């Protein structure tokens, strides 16, 4: 079962991450003129670090929460040169991140959709794929 739906679940977590990051980026864009505002960023740690997993001795064992636990890291951005009002948001940087994040989201969504299509094809005995 894990093999069948595993990549859909991985896709779901990736979509969740990109959506949360979009919220952080939206907050940066909304506060582009708020004095003293420091932009934030949401980084993603590598999926399921081996050290965080429970050791398994059988392939049917579950790796525990470490395998797919929270792997997103909030970060306050280091601002090199804030404006006169102490605002560190660079509109160009934020908007290019918005575009990149958007494209990644669309790509992963397409991937999940294709995977579901393959499962449907298999579930229909290869008919009407």
């Amino acid at each position, binding site marked *: 079962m894990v093999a069948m739906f595993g990549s859909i679940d991985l896709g779901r977590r990736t979509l969740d991450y990109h959506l949360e990051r*979009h919220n952080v980026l939206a*907050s940066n864009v909304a506060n582009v*003129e708020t004095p003293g505002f420091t932009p934030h960023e949401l980084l993603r740690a590598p999926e399921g670090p081996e050290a965080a997993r429970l050791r398994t001795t059988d392939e049917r064992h579950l790796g525990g929460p470490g395998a797919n636990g929270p792997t997103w890291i909030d970060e306050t951005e280091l601002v090199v040169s804030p404006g006169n009002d102490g605002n560190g948001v660079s509109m160009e940087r934020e908007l290019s991140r918005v575009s990149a994040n958007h494209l990644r989201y*669309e790509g992963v969504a397409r991937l999940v959709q294709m995977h579901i299509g393959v499962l449907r094809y298999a579930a229909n005995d290869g008919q009407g794929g």
Partner: protein
Amino acid sequence: MTTLGFMSAMEITASGLTAERVRMNTLASNLANARTTRTEEGGPYRRTDPVFRAVAASERLGVGSDPHARNVFLVEVPEVRQDTTPGPLVYDPSHPDANPEGYVEMPNVSVVTEMVNLVTATRAYEAGISMMDSVKTMARSALSIGS
């Protein structure tokens, strides 16, 4: 459990758009009254500036259970403050609002400053619009999963 999603991203973007619109309204008011020498409070018109403040999304959107919500902020305009710097004195004894020495205090509005602010407000508003477009397209592609 409420978490950050499409709706919260839209709310955050909308707060930015609203703040910029408030700013454009104050700029329009300043430009319209660039030569107003008589007001209800007496004296010439004084330019106004909105005050922007970042408010944690967990306070407004009910997304407190999301651990990442503490790094997400809406923008609010808690007040529109009056700029109290005195305006320039212009010598015009025939003006009805001239003082006994013949000087009229003009509003402290600089048309150049207001126009520069108008350009940055417009740019920030446009950035908000493209953010909103991006969120909407993303939501649409999420809805098409499984169809």
